[in-house]
């Protein structure tokens, strides 16, 4: 699954997957975590737009909860997709930094 298929939701999708990398979170938990982690504050519409797509692509899944807030966690497919995206970004970052250093 390529996150580029998520259109304008591809960046929020990556942020959500990264936020869920250390365990399940509900909507507000993800929003706060992403803001702490990156300084980006996702709007509720953007968050749930990406979240619905991630769930339909089976990259995340909802887990049972006793209250109305529903937590989500990464699936095996989601972990693989996140790993792939982060490796790509790491490669891009190291290449970019290397090129800057050569200047």
């Amino acid at each position, binding site marked *: 699954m390529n996150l580029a298929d998520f259109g304008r939701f591809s960046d929020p999708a990556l942020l959500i997957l990264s936020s869920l990398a250390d365990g399940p979170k509900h909507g507000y938990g993800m929003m706060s975590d992403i803001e702490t982690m990156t300084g980006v504050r996702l709007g509720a519409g953007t968050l749930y737009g990406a979240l619905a*797509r991630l769930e339909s692509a089976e990259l995340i899944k909802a887990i049972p909860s006793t209250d109305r807030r529903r937590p989500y966690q990464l699936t095996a497919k989601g972990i693989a997709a996140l790993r792939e995206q982060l490796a790509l970004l790491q490669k891009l970052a190291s290449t970019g930094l290397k090129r800057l250093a050569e200047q």
Partner: protein
Amino acid sequence: MNIRKWLVNLYPRMWRERYGDEFEILLEECLHSPLDALDILFGALDAHLELPYETNWRLMNMINKLRSTILFVFAAYVAFIVAGFSLNGLMDDSQLVPLTRSNPVLSISYATIEIGSVIALLAIMIGGAPLAWTIIRRVFTFQRKDLGLLFVPLASFLVLVGYFFMMVYLAFNTHVLDQPISSTGLALMWGLITIFAAGAIASTIAVWKLISHTDVEQDEFALLGKSATIKLYEFAYRPALIATLSMVVMFVATVVWGWLSYSLRPDLFIGNMGVMMTSTRGSFAFTLIVMTIATVTACLGIIRARSSRI
């Protein structure tokens, strides 16, 4: 109704059933500014645009393109039938018939048109049958508001048949359709053409709307006692391609036939032997123009589908 409920209600029903509750809780915690509300408005718009949640954008794009291809080819085929009737009217009781029989190239080109029309018809029927079955079944089960659209082709056909039988009755019991044809007879014949053309246009629009309204990407079919899930648009693509190729071949054969007939006997194209005693040349020109438009339309449809393959 508070602002949060109002914003949640902007989303499609299916989306609300799945995410409505948790989304409303989230809004209690993070709806602080008009910018937050604007973000939700965009989110709701996105949710409405992305209808089935189990599919992704690239797949949606492919399905939309395949669907429009099928619509293009179907509309082109209906136009081709009109052109075919015009060509048939040109041949009816004309010296072009013995001329065609006497020349091998003319015979082959005309036979090519006839064979092409049968192949195109079969292709449209084979490709369209599962699609038509799905549409009919869904209209009767949960899209009852589209029942009217479903009856347009049927009603058009019944009106055409009724009118035709009325003409047969008049032909046997009165003199209005005797040769030389009277102005009343001519008016009746034009009535038949008008009903046919109006029915063809109305039916094409109705089928177009039915396909557009129905999500028929795939369906379950019982074939020879076995159930099979087929992707309807992909299944219909190959017959649509065959129908389009048939239209191209028929168009070329018509041009060859017309050009050679005119070269051999230009006198046969003078006068008013066209459909409804219209100009022979005008009738043939009409046939060619309609065939050109139909063939180009069908080819554009196929090109559109080919650009969507993933």
